[in-house]
């Protein structure tokens, strides 16, 4: 925290792709979505290569997708295309030494088809972090609770499970175990 993102962006450390402006299709053509996702993937790939060519001290690159629902909207709800895209991104983690961080909202996937998306994400993840509001209701001191699940392997057993509570501050986030704060 306390990192000036716009400076990093000018130094080409941070590449920013605006998902809000992402439009894939004029008409509902299957090909448009594929082409759109391929474009996006290529842009990510190009950015990663640009970063790697600059400092080759074996730095890891992090891809953050914030958030997945925007991709779904851009694809007009085609779960298949989004999952394909994620599979491609996931392949980057091993090929190009990347971290992949995907943000998503759990509650929008309540219908049957969307459940598939959720379980798929759950399966391919190594670490699953859930941030929720406090189960006891809104409080001013504690903003929410967080569950971190670390798995053996994708789809494997749960190795570790932590639960925290957190409070968001101006320059960071304070994590603490439930009840340990005062």
């Amino acid at each position, binding site marked *: 925290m306390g990192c000036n993102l716009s400076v990093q962006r000018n130094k080409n450390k941070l590449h920013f792709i605006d998902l809000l402006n992402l439009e894939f299709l004029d008409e509902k053509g299957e090909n448009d979505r594929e082409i759109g996702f391929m474009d996006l993937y290529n842009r990510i790939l190009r950015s990663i290569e640009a970063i790697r060519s600059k400092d080759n001290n074996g730095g890891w690159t992090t891809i953050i997708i914030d958030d997945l629902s925007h991709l779904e909207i851009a694809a007009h709800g085609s779960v298949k295309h989004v999952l394909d895209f994620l599979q491609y991104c996931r392949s980057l983690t091993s090929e190009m030494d990347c971290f992949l961080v995907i943000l998503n909202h759990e509650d929008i996937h309540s219908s049957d088809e969307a459940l598939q998306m959720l379980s798929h994400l759950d399966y391919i993840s190594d670490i699953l972090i859930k941030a929720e509001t406090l189960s006891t209701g*809104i409080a001013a001191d504690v903003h929410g609770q967080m569950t971190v699940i670390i798995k053996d392997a994708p789809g494997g057993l749960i190795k570790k499970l932590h639960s925290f509570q957190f409070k968001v501050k101006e320059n960071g986030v304070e994590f603490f175990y439930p009840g340990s704060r005062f």
Partner: protein
Amino acid sequence: MATAADGRLLGARSANTSSFSRARSSPSAVLPSPPNPGVKVGPNGATFVSSGIPDLDRILGGGFLLGSLVMVMEDADAPHHLLLLRNFMSQGVVHRQPVLFASPLKDPRAFLGTLPSPVSLSKEHRQRDTLVDHNQQDQEKGLRIAWQYKKYFGDQQSSQIHNRDVKQEFSNDFDLRKALERQHVQYIESMSIQDIPRLTILRDRCSNFLSGLPRSDGGNLSAGRIAIQSLCAPQCGYAEMDWDLVAFIRFLRSIIRSSNVVAVVTFPTSFLSPAFLKRWQHLADTLLSVRAIPDEDKDMAKLLTGYQDMLGLLHVHKVAHNNSQVPTVLEASTFSLKLQKRRSLVLERLNQAPVEASSGTSYSTSGTCSGPSKGSSLDF
């Protein structure tokens, strides 16, 4: 007596302006040009426009954030969202901000005829001071004559009067019984979304509206307002277009983010599937919902003071914030909508009625009330 009253008012006003200029960054405070009353600069470089309801501005920490998308969830039983929309647009008219209004009505112009007009300062003055002396009455007479004259003079004259009368404030009280005059309403760009089979036209109108806005010059920020009523109402014929609608909202959000515009979108929740409702809610920067209160709810009436005067409930789900990651935690998230003196809209926190200590029965009834059935509406 008159001087004392005037002095008080003057003092109050000067105090206002001084706090205003302090909130702005110091170099711009030096500028001789008066700050735009329609735009307020808050902490963290946030700029606000008023929602048209002073209480709501206060609750949201200053008003609607410029560049944010405000979504209002409608109640199926009551048109309370229209109150919010009306005040929002009237405030824009008073501040001479460009307004775009899209509605599923056949004739949106007719709806614009129902916009409330601001409670003029002189009246306010009279209300506050119980003693009305001759001097002030004369002044008021002069004003009234001026209002009369407005019919005969051109538009400019009226705008001057407008200026002198009410324009000084960031947010006005609006008189719901008195309609805004037609000539002011002309400035609102309106369109009907009923006969538009595709959302691209609405999209184009919004982006045209944005490109037509005056650029902000120097310290004087200019703001615009977009009001969209009942976006997914069935008469628009957007059935089976869920993804298009979500894409439209996302598009709207992306174009206003980099501009000085606030968009208020109201939508009926009952026509959306739960999954899409969640998607809509996540896309909002500020999320409000309005609810009617049932007429014959004896239990609620016993539990809350002033139940008879309540029009409905307003729930604040999410508050937009700028340049800060700290979420706003409000003291209360449910407020009652009331009419003050049967004309201007006020929001109040819910107050629990005192329980009659003598009778055990009333205690038990209120106990059951705060159970799961009503618990959602009562956040203490």
